[in-house]
């Protein structure tokens, strides 16, 4: 499954399953998301944390190779910006797609923002930061 066609099929399956799961957990629902971030409702937080625990255990059993990851100067500022944006708009990069798919048309604006933000980051990194993020290997 490492050929081009195989990777394509795997991406389609992953996308369908991810969109279906994320929508059914309720990450696209701003009220639910705010209840998670303010700890009024731990359901979605437990879903995320539970997933991480399962993944850690399965990867440990299967001895999945550890991808190298360097802590560079952009990690903390980037995560702060992302956290702020997530709390305000209710979208990480996958969620606005699910929101639009659920009928929330204004999420198209969030997607436009994400696109502009990524372009800005590329531009600013090339011009000012010069960080060797190596991030696409994530």
């Amino acid at each position, binding site marked *: 499954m*490492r050929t081009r066609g195989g990777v*394509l099929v795997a*991406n389609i399956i*992953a*996308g*369908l399953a991810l*969109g*279906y*799961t*994320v*929508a*059914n*957990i309720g990450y*696209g*629902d*701003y009220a639910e998301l705010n209840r998670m971030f303010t700890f009024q409702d*731990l*359901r979605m937080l437990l*879903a*995320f944390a*539970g997933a991480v625990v399962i993944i*850690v255990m399965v990867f440990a059993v299967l001895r999945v190779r*550890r*991808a190298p*990851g360097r802590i560079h100067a952009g*990690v903390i*500022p*980037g995560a*702060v*910006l*992302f*956290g702020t*944006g997530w*709390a305000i*708009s*209710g*979208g*990480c*990069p*996958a969620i606005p797609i*699910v929101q639009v*798919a*659920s*009928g929330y048309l*204004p*999420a198209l604006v*969030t997607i*436009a*923002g*994400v*696109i502009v*933000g*990524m*372009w800005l*980051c590329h531009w600013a990194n090339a011009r000012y*930061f010069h960080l060797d*993020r*190596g*991030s*696409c290997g994530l």
Partner: protein
Amino acid sequence: MSNYWPWWAGAIGLALVTINYTLTTDRSLGVSAAWDRVLHWRSERQLERIDAQFTDDRALVEAFAAATAEQFATSPLAGATRGDTPTSSQEVGPHAGDETAPVAPLRPAPLVTQAALLLSIFVGGWVAAVTAGRFQLRFDMGDGFREIVTANPNTMISLLFAGGVLVGFGTRLAGGCSSGHGLSGCGRLRPVSILATAVFFGTAVLVSFLLWKVI
């Protein structure tokens, strides 16, 4: 509103998606990386082409080595090779790569597949919304957004856009989002991912409390 999955079903679902993707493709699932690469498709296409060129060149060199060895081993007639080599070299270049290009183990996923990932998320989300009876075309972001953030449509649009810019900029600067750092990275216990996840989640908690309590 309460027909969402219980937490354990969500956990199993998210874990299955991530594990299945990692095992079948030997790559990490990352939605923001997919966005990034699709947005910069021009430069990504160029990279893919350069990559293909490299494999072409390598194949060309190998083909030359093989041909040279063959020539010297089988036919001692030097005149015949001098006439043939230039034309054959130009023909070998573009064609050899297609047949003999070795698949590098850790190349990023092809561009098309990343676009397919984003489209599939849309389809998956749509199927979920329709089958759960939640699908409804609307021009607001729901009661929660109206009560917690703003009821003014113009402010809503501005905030969504500003938030989106922060998300796009922040995820690329930090090198990942809730799927790349949060699920794949934390699942592999990468320190950078655990740090990033803690920071973006902590910030989101702070900002949400501010929105909810103060404003």
